């Protein structure tokens, strides 16, 4: 097990290198001059050159990439923002927890509700509850996130005035963003749970469990769910990845000071150091989530566990 973990953690290194290199190449070919954007229209050619030299913008792509990796790994320094002049690590330390909270709160909500709805739908297949849930799930999948966010603000913040429409400090502020961001994933997890459970409920070993005289609750939650979880875990992992992307939109709709908004603003301003830092963090988050998903697999599926040994 420790060898498996070690191998997976080592595998993070090439992934992060690859993602950051791709990003550097993209930024290199994207039009837009940071020097001009930061110093403004009236800046002299001299000061522009000075700015580029200071930030190595006049160097070739590989040199810039090498410097970035060297400084990040050796000095844990990702440079300073062109705009605010503050260190990138500090900016990210301020915003990354907010985004992580938004995304993980949403995935927990989506998973818990998705599992609950999916199980009930499978057990009561074709019931009214099942039919209504499936229609809502269909809507949840097809409604764009920003649209749902605006609708929720209109209903619950503007009309009913139950919760504030922006910010992310108190629980009441977090409720709408969590629901908005989790809606699609919740719908997908509900549908996945339902179909996975339906398949497992008809299996022979579930019939064996009933033939033992086991109660229906234990048959469903112990015998069926444990097996149905295997494909559901995959979906939850993929959805968490999507949620990190969706977080950027959600942060814009609800004016949440998260890393998504930081990154979007930085891209507009060609604030390269911030963009690089944000992307590196998101890449690492992806890799860590994948690792967690694999550990969950091993926990649920003894076939994998016996292979890992």
């Amino acid at each position: 097990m420790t060898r498996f973990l070690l191998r997976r953690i080592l595998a993070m290194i090439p992934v992060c290198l690859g993602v950051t290199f791709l990003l550097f190449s993209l930024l290199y070919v994207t039009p837009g001059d940071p020097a001009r954007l930061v110093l403004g229209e009236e800046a002299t050619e001299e000061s522009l050159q000075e700015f580029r030299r200071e930030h190595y913008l006049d160097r070739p792509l590989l040199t810039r990439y090498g410097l970035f990796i060297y400084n990040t790994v050796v000095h844990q320094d990702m440079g300073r923002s062109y705009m605010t002049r503050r260190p990138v690590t500090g900016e990210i330390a301020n915003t990354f927890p907010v985004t992580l909270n938004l995304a993980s709160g949403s995935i927990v909500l989506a998973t818990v509700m998705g599992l609950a709805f999916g199980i009930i739908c499978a057990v009561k297949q074709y019931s009214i509850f099942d039919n209504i849930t499936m229609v809502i799930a269909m809507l949840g999948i097809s409604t764009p996130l920003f649209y749902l966010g605006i609708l929720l603000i209109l209903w619950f913040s503007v009309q009913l005035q139950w919760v504030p429409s922006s910010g992310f400090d108190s629980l009441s502020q977090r409720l709408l963003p969590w629901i908005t961001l989790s809606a699609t994933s919740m719908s997908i997890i509900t549908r996945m749970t339902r179909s996975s459970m339906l398949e497992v409920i008809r299996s022979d070993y579930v019939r064996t469990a009933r033939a033992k005289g086991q109660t229906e609750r234990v048959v469903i939650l112990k015998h069926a769910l444990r097996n149905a979880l295997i494909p559901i875990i995959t979906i939850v992992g993929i959805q968490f990845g999507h949620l990190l992307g969706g977080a950027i939109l959600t942060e814009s709709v609800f004016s949440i000071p998260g890393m998504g908004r930081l990154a979007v603003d930085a891209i507009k301003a060609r604030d390269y150091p911030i963009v690089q830092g944000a992307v590196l963090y998101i890449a690492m988050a992806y890799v860590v989530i994948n690792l967690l998903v694999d550990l969950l697999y091993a926990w649920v599926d003894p076939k994998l566990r016996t292979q890992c040994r």
Partner: protein
Amino acid sequence: MDQQREHILDIRDLRVQYHTDTGLVKAVEGLNLSLARGETLGLVGETGAGKTTTALAIMQLIASPPGRIAGGSIFFEGEDMLAKSEEEKRHIRGGKIAMIFQDPMTSLNPVLSVQEQIAEMIRLHQKVTDKEALEKARDMLGLVGLRPERGPDYPHQFSGGMKQRVVIAIALACSPRLLIADEPTTALDVTIQAQILELMQQLKQHFNTATILISHDLGVVAQLCDSVAIMYAGRILEKADAKSLYANPQHPYTQGLFNSIPDMTKNVTRLNTIAGLPPDPTELPPGCCFAPRCAHASGACSEGSPRMVEYKPGHFVACSRMNGNGGGALGPAEERGQAHG
């Protein structure tokens, strides 16, 4: 009443139906069957005859929807299973009636260790601590010929034959009074089949459990059973003690089954098969369900199901050819059965 007390199981005029898109499948249609304590009965019939459905009906495990017990009664130890609450049924399932399913590859839960799956059965029906249950589970593994140390292993680490041994260990863990084995060897290799049958023979003596051995193989049944019932299109066509049935099959269908067993002593190039196919269970023929394939069929055969008659003491046949030969009907249940047919 007397008969009920004597018999551990008494099924009367059982009817089980499945509602499907293509129509109402009458899987079991007027089945009568009884089993004495300690008796081993072979239930023989082609695929689709309704054997598994009968077994699930006894266990009260017919999946609903699409299935439904449409009529009849199942008396287990003199008490009507259909009248029991879900709670009471759960105590009977596993504790008093246990079942071995057809396919060992799929009847064990892949994410639970085999000892846990045996121990679960024990915990459900006996007052034991978790530790005692696990110990007893390992003892059961030993009893079915597996090493007790393999208890913590998972089903995928066992072969098909070993899995079936685990399934048998689960079924017998609480010493049930009735064991239903649904084609326990069909999914296994021939050599493994022999080992499993041998094991079941031993355990039958060890536990003295009344057993229904479901099979489509008359050879398998001959090895283990005291009596044999021949099932066709949801009904029993012939029932007798094994000796009498093998020596003297009476129903044309039973005779056809025996004829279709290849005889290695004779040099034949073709297998004798019964002409035609079993009837479509959504549209059972009126009268005798075997009549469309029967060489002896006459006009009388399509009018009302033939009643079960006692051809010889203990040897029952449902064929209109027998009705002339005298012999009383089994009981009032059969007459009720006719009214439905």
